[in-house]
């Protein structure tokens, strides 16, 4: 294992820590860059024991596109949910939907569940103990199959590709 890999076991995590520290302090002064670098080196090392399994970001470009897609969907979701809330209550068709997972990595499942919670009229509630189904609550479900198909193609497929699992 090369020295760089030993020093930076989680390069992306380190980069995020560095950026978060600089943003928190709203500065780019040399002192804070030094402090941020130290934190970026020490924290991944100190938390190494808590990391479940390594997951590589296979396609960073796609990850960025996915992030923009999710941000857009969140905006649309807000307007959609706002309409549902202000509209007549009788028209709501809430439903629990069992979503069959194709991902088999805990971190990838977490990302998918968080995405579902943040996007149109759905909240992820629970993962089955065998990690094969995700219980999702929909605020206004017209067609369960269509909802599952949409989540599958819109969110799960890109996540699968991004992490290559």
């Amino acid at each position, binding site marked *: 294992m090369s020295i760089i890999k030993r020093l930076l076991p989680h390069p992306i995590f380190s980069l995020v820590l560095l950026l978060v520290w600089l*943003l928190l302090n709203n500065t780019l002064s040399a002192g804070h860059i030094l402090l941020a670098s130290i934190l970026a080196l020490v924290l991944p090392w100190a938390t190494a024991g808590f990391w479940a399994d390594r997951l590589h970001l296979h396609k960073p470009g796609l990850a960025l596109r996915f992030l923009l897609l999710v941000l857009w969907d969140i905006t649309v979701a807000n307007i959609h949910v706002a309409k549902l809330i*202000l509209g007549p209550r009788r028209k709501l068709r809430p439903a629990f939907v069992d979503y069959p997972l194709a991902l088999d990595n805990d971190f990838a499942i977490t990302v998918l569940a968080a995405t579902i919670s943040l996007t149109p009229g759905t909240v992820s509630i629970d993962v089955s103990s065998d990690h094969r189904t995700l219980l999702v609550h929909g605020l206004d479900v017209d067609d369960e199959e269509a909802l599952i198909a949409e989540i599958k193609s819109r969110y799960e497929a890109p996540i699968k590709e991004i992490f290559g699992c």
Partner: protein
Amino acid sequence: MLDIIISIFLILGAGFALVGSIGLLRLPDFYTRLHGPTKATTLGLGGLLIASMIYFSSRGDVSLHELLVTLFLFMTAPVSAHLLAKAALHLRVRSEIDLPRDEQSKP
């Protein structure tokens, strides 16, 4: 001009936050109410944060703190919604529709 843009974002943000709260009041059961805080308020806060970013950046230093608030909100909102829903399901909180089986509660 800048004031107008900031005001638009502030009103938009406050409006969505209000809708989220109305949702909490109007929706029929616990599970549907969960949708309010996880969504309508995200955009509400987003609007306020953009307004704050423009306002403080226009007064000199560039202000990007707000990006962090967004980041942390996006990481924590789904987690709290998930835990609330899981706990509610476990306790069999009343719902308008049939509840699914809870794996953890042994018959």
